[in-house]
């Protein structure tokens, strides 16, 4: 991989899209502020960790849309050919897309989110004792890491589907998640011999009902850590690699 090419690709993207990114940032700020306004206005209906909720909705919503624009050229064959003909390798183009939509976006998002959260905290601290969201409390950063997995899936979708790639990727993701949920419940029931499993998370744990109470069965801590690392660090790498493979196949 040539770092000069990578830098040039990033510069091109930023130069061509800078106006859009600036406007997008303003829209994101407005959307986050609106979400905070909604959860504050109907605070009795929105109990719990509302700042965490707003953070995740904003991150996955805007991050997904932003990631889907990385290879939007593929939606039109002429533009797609132009993208493929840019003098840089597939790996450099994929790396540029990951750097922009994965890492740079996350940094920009954190800035915009904390600006909005800061205003929310400022206005509500005195009456409600609100404090800014702490990403490191109770392992919340694991969910932030899950953004990279989501990023990998959306990037892969944008090179797999030509038309309406974002919508199609979300649809496939939804179907896979529903299937995984039922398949995992079924599998856990068969393996454990427990008949009334009502919920489960693949590679993590399950719960079953016993005399009206949910009993939780989780992986031992060390195995759970390995599972977390696989889901949040290894899986994104796998999806980014498959995206690269698919991109190369398009070149051929």
């Amino acid at each position, binding site marked *: 991989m040539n770092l000069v090419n990578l830098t040039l690709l990033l510069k091109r993207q930023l130069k061509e899209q800078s106006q859009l990114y600036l406007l997008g940032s303003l829209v994101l700020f407005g959307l986050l502020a609106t979400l905070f306004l909604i959860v504050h206005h109907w605070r009795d209906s929105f109990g719990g960790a509302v700042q965490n909720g707003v953070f995740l909705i904003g991150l996955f919503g805007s991050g997904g849309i932003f990631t889907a624009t990385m290879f939007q050229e593929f939606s039109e064959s002429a533009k797609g050919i132009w993208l493929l003909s840019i003098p840089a390798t597939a790996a450099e183009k994929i790396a540029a897309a990951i750097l922009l939509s994965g890492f740079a976006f996350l940094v920009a998002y954190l800035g915009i989110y904390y600006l909005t959260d800061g205003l929310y905290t400022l206005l509500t601290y005195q009456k409600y004792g609100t404090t800014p969201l702490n990403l490191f409390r109770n392992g919340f950063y694991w969910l932030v890491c899950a953004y990279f997995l989501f990023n990998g899936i959306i990037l892969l979708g944008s090179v797999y589907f030509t038309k309406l790639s974002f919508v199609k990727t979300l649809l496939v993701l939804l179907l896979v998640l529903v299937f995984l949920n039922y398949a995992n419940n079924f599998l856990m029931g068969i393996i454990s011999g427990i008949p009334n499993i009502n919920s489960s998370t693949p590679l993590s744990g399950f719960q079953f009902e016993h005399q009206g109470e949910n009993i939780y069965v989780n*992986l031992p801590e060390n195995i759970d850590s390995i599972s977390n690392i696989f889901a949040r660090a290894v899986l994104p790498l796998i999806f980014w690699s498959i995206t690269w493979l698919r991109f190369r196949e398009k070149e051929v």
Partner: protein
Amino acid sequence: MKKSNIALLGLALIFTAGMLTTGFILKKEAAKINLNDPLRNYETTPTAAFKVLKISGSNGYPIHIQYDTGNSLTVLRRRKSFLKAKNTADTLEIIFSGANIPLDEASKNTTPAGIIIKTNAVNKIANQNTFVRIIDFRKTDLDLALSGQAVATFSNCQFPALNIRATGQSRFGFDGQNIADNFNLNLQNSTIGFLKNIQFAVLQHQVGDSAAVVLSNQVMAQVFNQGQKKLMQPTK
């Protein structure tokens, strides 16, 4: 077949193998759970005896403080990582973070306890922002300090002396049958005390301008009786 499709198929196989492996590990974990144990979703660790208990965090899960023969800390297994406990000299400090629910809803919270603290020696509790239920205290004095958005409920307790100091927006109330021979109240800021299901011989109070005390019919009668007794006492 294209390499990308083969890679996706490989990923699906790895994922399925992972699900099968975790299934067998979870089967072993499930076998360890004693379904007859009422605390089957909890994990208990004994702690050194403490006289002062400092609790802070959030109010999403109630914290039960129960008078008992020993000292122990029992935590909901799913929320184990949310708990930080530190024992120093005669003090047990607990931070139990997590989600917050609106203050008005906190005392109606029917969620199972996040932590159950059993103690045989505590006489001072400081609660900041959490929801605690103080249960079955018998014949022991207690100082309770509430701050921030703390909520406290007493259930079936008997105190020779009960001192409550509330600040911030904290609240407290009583369930079942409670007795405090000497009941000292100090309510400041926007605090609220719900005096219901509590009997007392002597009530001393300091209530700030913005604080509120809500009395039940029975407690109001006690307050008036106490006031009349004072009026009937000879003055110098």
